[in-house]
């Protein structure tokens, strides 16, 4: 589905990614772990075309996408759900969701996707006329995820969806992700700091440290890995 080869990315003069390579199969649920500043967001933004890699190549469904603009990538069915949400504060929830279906190819089955999003997050249905900036943090994250789903993506890139949320909300969102993966057959690439959450719901994981892939493996294996615990807590 997605194949990244030896990508080097520079951010404001600083090298953020050092020849990162990874590969994700169709319908897989993969997570990228790593501490803050390890390059997780950079990696996702590079895939989505927001940043240009200096070297290396990215293939999506065997098509090179590393030179494409972000709006082209969006219409291929690769949706990024960014860390900060990048919501449209002065637009209603419904309009925010509609924007997710902006690419021409996505405009056909808006109704179905919208229903799916409201089914996933019923709270959004009640608030669909409300302006996005008046929502709480968790609801905003739901809008962000929902907006990503609106284009019926083949693959979803999620950047720390649990950031700064209350546990109960995190639970809802992660549950929704599992549903998306299972029901919609959507490939998911998720980044998380909270490795426990991530490994629990994903199939495979990569550990990113200082811009390099440090370790990879099946989630269950990684969950038991001593290095990870040590690396995180220093014990």
């Amino acid at each position, binding site marked *: 589905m997605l194949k990244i080869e030896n990508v080097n990315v520079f951010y*404001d*003069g*600083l090298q*953020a990614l050092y020849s990162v390579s990874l590969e994700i199969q169709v319908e897989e649920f993969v997570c990228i772990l790593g*501490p*803050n*500043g390890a390059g997780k967001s950079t990696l996702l933004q590079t895939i989505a075309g927001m940043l240009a890699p200096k070297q290396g190549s990215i293939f999506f469904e065997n098509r090179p996408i590393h030179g494409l603009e972000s709006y082209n990538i969006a219409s291929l069915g690769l949706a990024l759900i960014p860390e900060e949400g990048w919501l449209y504060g002065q637009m209603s929830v419904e309009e925010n969701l509609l924007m997710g279906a902006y690419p021409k190819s996505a405009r056909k089955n808006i109704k179905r996707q919208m229903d799916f999003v409201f089914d996933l997050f019923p709270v959004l249905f009640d608030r669909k006329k409300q302006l996005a900036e008046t929502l*709480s*943090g968790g609801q905003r994250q739901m809008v962000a995820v929902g907006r990503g789903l609106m284009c019926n993506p083949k693959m979803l890139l999620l950047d*720390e969806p649990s*950031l*700064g949320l*209350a*546990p109960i909300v995190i*639970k809802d969102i*992660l*549950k929704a992700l*599992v549903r998306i993966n*299972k029901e919609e057959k959507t490939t998911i690439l998720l980044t998380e*700091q*909270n*490795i*426990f*959450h991530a490994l*629990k*719901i994903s199939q495979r994981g990569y550990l990113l440290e*200082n*811009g390099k892939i440090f370790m990879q493996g099946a989630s269950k294996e990684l969950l038991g890995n001593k290095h990870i*615990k040590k*690396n*995180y*807590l*220093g*014990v």
Partner: protein
Amino acid sequence: MTNTPQQTSLLQARNLSMAFGGLDVFKDISLDIFEHQIVALIGPNGAGKTTLINCITGVYKPTEGNIAFQGKPISGLRPHQICRAGIGRTYQIPRPFMNMTVLQNLQVCAKPGEKDFRRLLDLAGLWEKRHRLAKALTFQERRLLELSRALSVNPKLLLLDETIAGLNPSETKDMMTILKRIHSEFKVTILWVEHVMSAIMETAHHIFCLHQGALIAEGSPADIANNDKVIEAYLGEEYKFQEK
């Protein structure tokens, strides 16, 4: 742990709360920072660490609570007054004065008459580059410059915001050495917000752990490493998912 920590309180925060538009960032935090210690403030992203620093330095006015520095209340003062009282800071993404030379960056902040810029720049290894514009420096150099700029105001307390985030291992090592030198040579107390646990465990005398706007633990590195709440905050609670 090179110094024997002395138990004089330098900074006292009492019942500090901060909220933006009704959204609590942190609530009811009380902490003491003792002189000549390296104190670390840890916690997952979004826990409110940077906001706490901004409250101490006067960028934000805390919605509730008091901060006292060397026994004098400083909450409500403007940032430059707090700086002059003896608190220096750095930023997560370095913010030197980009269109000024390295030397000017130090000159502008230092009190008149104190001209020991060479010492500060040697520490950062930037003396040779003192006539360069800050924007021509690398990321790491900017961070070092910012550090020496913060020292140029002769602070008693230095607030560091993620000083080693985004550095590679060898750079991290260098930075740690520099931090230790700063602590011992300049006799400053350091409050250090950081993510990289290994570095903190090695350097800090005392650690506070902030999670979702509350102080959930404090103590020596060893205490923190074995604290259940901390482990939970980092590794997450156990969730049971209905997996097929």
